[in-house]
């Protein structure tokens, strides 16, 4: 009898084994009430599918090799990095799944996201929320910082965690120009003095749109009046002045402003071929990466604006219908770790600024971070941070993009 029950127990365990090993962790509510160790155990042996912009070999290598290596070795989790050229298509996958009633076996476990795409996910209720306190490394995140707690003006509300911070920066070719224009008014003068040497990608390109917002802030006499909910009256006032400025400089732009590049990649090509003299990007570290991989001339130098540039934070988000939420949480926790954040800040890895608050990190790892030598051609983060400007709410941004298309890009 004892033998029999032993065998029965063994058989039952064996029968259950595949289920426990491949535990479905779609129930986010349950995870939110668990201890971290339990979540790690649930995640062990599983997989996580991370769909993210895949146009950079260095970022891909960091994610697949460094982060994927940690997941594999320490947690026995397989990281499946899927590169996409446009994050909006990932939002569409999740949206399509929700419309078709796929509530707990979606195909996306994590998205690299911010801004417009995050707003869409929030509005359609597509994000898994309320888990941030579960992550041990959440203590490193400064949620009191409004630039972290708000994603393009939309409150994060525990629906995503920061990965990196970025701040818009300009760059110029030191072989062609002695000194670059260091404020928006100076830049506008510079454009008129150097016909054909400047252009910007047409909004709604992400980077072109940010450039237009810099002019918008300038025309509005500062960003203070533009914060908060969209206001038609304040918009109309600043918009009229902005379109005036942008239409006035149009004849002095590349190809007399007859056409605009449609992507930041196109602008970078124009700059690389010396068709234009100034380039910009929301990711200042890109200058160093682009010099090292041969896209930019080595004489390129990034610089900050005295009247400030706009900064943002990018995040990682877990869709509501991810079946591998436990593994996705482990991945997020690894991404937030001081070690992974410092590795990411190394100029030959990526060189982007941490999403965590480095003052909360102590000991050896902090020393490594403080000792990082930035790429000599990348603008120092301190220079940028000294004059950081906030992003507007997404409703403002879409109004400005639409207004540009109607009044300038026509």
């Amino acid at each position, binding site marked *: 009898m004892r033998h029999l029950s032993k065998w029965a127990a063994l058989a039952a365990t064996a029968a259950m084994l595949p289920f426990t090993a491949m535990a479905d962790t779609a129930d986010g509510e349950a995870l939110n009430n668990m201890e971290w160790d339990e979540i790690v155990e649930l995640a062990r042996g599983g997989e996580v599918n991370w769909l993210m912009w895949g146009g950079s*070999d260095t970022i891909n*290598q960091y994610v697949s090799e460094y982060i994927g290596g940690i997941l594999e070795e320490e947690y026995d989790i397989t990281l499946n990095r899927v590169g996409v050229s446009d994050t909006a298509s990932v939002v569409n996958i999740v949206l*399509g*799944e929700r419309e078709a009633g796929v509530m707990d076996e979606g195909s996306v476990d994590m998205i690299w996201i911010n801004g417009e795409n995050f707003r869409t996910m929030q509005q359609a209720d597509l994000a898994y929320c309320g888990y941030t306190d579960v992550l041990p490394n959440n203590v490193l995140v400064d949620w009191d910082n409004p630039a972290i707690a708000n994603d393009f003006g939309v409150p994060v509300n525990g629906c995503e965690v920061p990965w990196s911070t970025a701040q818009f920066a300009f760059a110029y070719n030191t072989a062609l120009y002695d000194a670059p224009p260091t404020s928006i008014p100076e830049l506008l003068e510079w454009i008129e003095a150097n016909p054909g040497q400047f252009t910007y990608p047409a909004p709604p390109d992400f980077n072109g749109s940010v450039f237009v917002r810099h002019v918008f802030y300038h025309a509005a006499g500062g960003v203070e009046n533009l914060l908060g909910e969209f206001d038609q009256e304040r918009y109309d006032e600043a918009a009229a002045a902005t379109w005036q400025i942008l239409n006035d400089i149009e004849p002095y732009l590349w190809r007399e402003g007859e056409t605009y590049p449609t992507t930041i990649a196109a602008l970078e090509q124009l700059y690389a071929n010396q068709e234009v003299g100034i380039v910009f990007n929301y990711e200042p570290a890109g200058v160093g990466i682009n010099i090292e991989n041969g896209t930019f001339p080595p004489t390129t130098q990034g610089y900050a604006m005295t009247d400030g540039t706009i900064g943002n934070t990018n995040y990682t988000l877990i869709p509501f219908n991810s079946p591998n939420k436990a593994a996705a949480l482990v991945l997020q926790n690894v991404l937030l770790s001081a070690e992974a954040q410092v590795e990411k800040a190394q100029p030959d890895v990526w060189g982007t600024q941490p999403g965590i608050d480095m003052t909360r990190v102590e000991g050896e790892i902090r020393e490594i971070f403080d000792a990082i030598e930035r790429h000599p051609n990348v603008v120092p983060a301190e220079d940028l941070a000294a004059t950081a400007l906030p992003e507007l709410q997404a409703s403002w941004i879409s109004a400005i993009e639409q207004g540009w298309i109607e009044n300038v890009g026509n």
Partner: protein
Amino acid sequence: MIGQDGLWTKTFRYITCLLLVTWLVLPLIPLAIWSVARGWFFPDILPRMWTLDAWRYALSDTSGVLDALWLTIGISLAATVLSILVGVPAGRALGMYKFKGKEVIELMILAPTIVPGIAVVLGVHTVFIYLGLTNTVHGVILVHLIPTLPYMTLVMAGIFSNYDPAFEAQARSLGASPLKTFWYVTLPAIMPGIIVGGLFAFLVSWSQYILTLLVGGGRVVTLPLLLFNFATSGRNDITGAIGMIYILPGILILTLTAKQLSGRSGAVGGFGRI
């Protein structure tokens, strides 16, 4: 007179051939150079620095290009075979018979080539979710049939509209079984069409992006997915390296079927030779 005329056609043919080759090959040269360049700036004719970094990345495990190459070949071959299996009978029906609603059916078959894919892709995604076919290789193969079938069916319809079924009747009257008739009479006659249609089907499936991404849900990573990542981000070096790998199967298949595609074969000139 006849000799002169012949010379003129010959010269014309060589010039056309040269133009065509230039037109096809010339754009590939910068791509090949970029794949081994470390920076290439105007006004340099050739890059100043050379590197194999892009190739090293393209062939690494991280990039997943080699896995994607085999997977894409498998998917495109399967989509081609299925297109042939569906397209040949469909083309025969459309090419040889008159029936009610034929125009409507022709229009529906043509629809995927007229309607922009992006407009229907979300609906297709929903349907595939309902059918439980998302995130699978066979789901991706099936969804590729939407853009490949119009080409296959239309080519076969053209072939069959010039096809004389009396040959089949003759074989049957001489005692051949239906299978034998198909194998020895029908198949050789329509072979050029199958090859041309199959080539279209393969290349159309080979270049699918948004259908693969949505229906594959990121689980099915084909070469276009990897290629577009870098093409859209302005990385000419890696785009060049992956692009070189990307065009290999196309060139290989084109070479293998070149004879069938030349003016001498029945596929282009109808059935004059049968």
